[in-house]
């Protein structure tokens, strides 16, 4: 387990968290390479099946991250996303996916530091949790 390097799929909104990740980069703040960013226009367009697919394909965790309440560039996409994440957090743990494997955060465009910290903490958490069962199982 010591060598376990988790894969985290992060759906980040173009306007806030993606910009924060960019800022972290330009500010030369290091963050673990375990995260794969997928830029979406808004967290409100993250279909639950994107999350399900990522986890079934063996991602060790999924992060959905966008603008703070009130800052969503499509007014309320992030509030809708929050309900969808709540829904998934009810469904997925019933089948053994730990709740910690799905996270939702608000990280604003200027929060480069917060972005880097979030990724650090998530990687540390998932390392303790161990790999997602889906990676080893033949998912049918």
């Amino acid at each position, binding site marked *: 387990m010591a060598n376990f390097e988790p894969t985290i799929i992060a759906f980040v909104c173009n306007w806030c968290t993606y910009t924060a990740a960019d800022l972290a980069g330009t500010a030369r703040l290091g963050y673990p390479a375990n995260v794969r960013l997928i830029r979406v226009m808004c967290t409100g367009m993250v279909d*639950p*099946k994107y999350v*399900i*697919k990522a986890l*079934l394909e063996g991602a060790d965790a999924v992060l959905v991250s966008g603008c703070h*309440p009130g800052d969503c560039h499509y007014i*309320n996409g992030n*509030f*809708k996303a*929050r*309900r*969808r*994440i*709540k*829904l*998934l*957090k*009810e*469904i*997925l743990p*019933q*089948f*053994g*996916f730990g709740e*910690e494997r799905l*996270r*939702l*955060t*608000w990280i604003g465009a200027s929060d480069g530091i*917060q972005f880097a*910290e*979030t990724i650090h*903490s*998530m990687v540390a*958490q998932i390392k303790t949790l161990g790999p997602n*069962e*889906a990676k080893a*199982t*033949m*998912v*049918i």
Partner: protein
Amino acid sequence: MKTAKINVNDGDLLTTLRDFFRSILQLEDISAILVPQHLPATNVVMPTLVTDPEQLNGTDPLAPVFPLNAAKIVSRLTRKPMGAKVAVVLRPCEIRAFVELVKLKQGRIEEVLLVGIDCLGAFKNGDYIQIAGKKEAEFTSSFYKDALSGKKLTFEGFDLAPACKACENPIPDGADILIGLFGVDTNNQLLIQARTPKGETLYETLDLSDTEEPPERPAVVESLVAERTAYRDKMFAETAEATNSLEKLNIYFAECVNCYNCRVACPVCYCKECVFVTDVFNHDPVQYLRWANRKGVIKMPTDTVFYHLTRMAHMSTSCVGCGQCTNACPNDIPVMELFRTVSYHTQNAFEYEAGRSIEDDLPLSVFREDELAEVVGIGNHCNL
């Protein structure tokens, strides 16, 4: 609540019901009635849309079967204004599914009058066909007599569908007009109750004589609901235990052939075109090879568990537990058990109950700004 009794001769409920439906259909305001009826020369019971009062002789809403959830039919009938009023005779789970469809903008309540009958439950479709054989009418009467006298409902080794045994909603609470059987002396009487203003208007025109609800009815209903709830909770516990890891979930769905019948049969699977039958899932042939290469083996067809989990994300907050998914499964996977178990969690999470009220917003169609703080953040930092 306006309540009346209508007389039954010799416990012959079907004749009484047919007469009652005929009196509804003869009202000026009602153009047609949708009611389950035996199809000529078969033992099959299907919803029929009747405009001629003489065509109600095969009516059999007490047959212990419903080959489909008729909410889907009512949705078809009410998709656009038709300029006429239709009375629809439905089971409680069909009414609740219709309520969900109305909220999903796939049906309109304005032109229907919901007539609900206390539900005695049903057999699985396949089981019913085998039991009823050729003598269906007598089977219905022996069935409801047994059901109402509290006898065990097993026929030739067949038992009621698990969906019905786990159903804690045997009373059609959402109906405009309720026809009551439980706690009623059904050898002599049926209960008619107007539960909404719409129902009351109709009630007034029917020339019924008011009475009180029989005092024993609440207790009878309560004990039935308690029995069903106990069965349901046991089913939830067993199903959760059988699926609490991905490995077990794989085993649960091992026989699934991706026919998608469960979503076709589901009254609340609301997508007009399911994404799983579109080109999105018609993967590039080389993609299969890539997937296979990664682990050395993949099961074909692919996307089975993916489909079921996605379906849960779509329909679970609206699931009414009618069990038509299980009826539709060619390989007898207990899908209702799982979908209901998940739905129970998701509906609780949003303090929502599918079909309870036309007023409650669908959980995924609304949001509040100050809610669900607990789902945001990564756990160890308060502000992250």
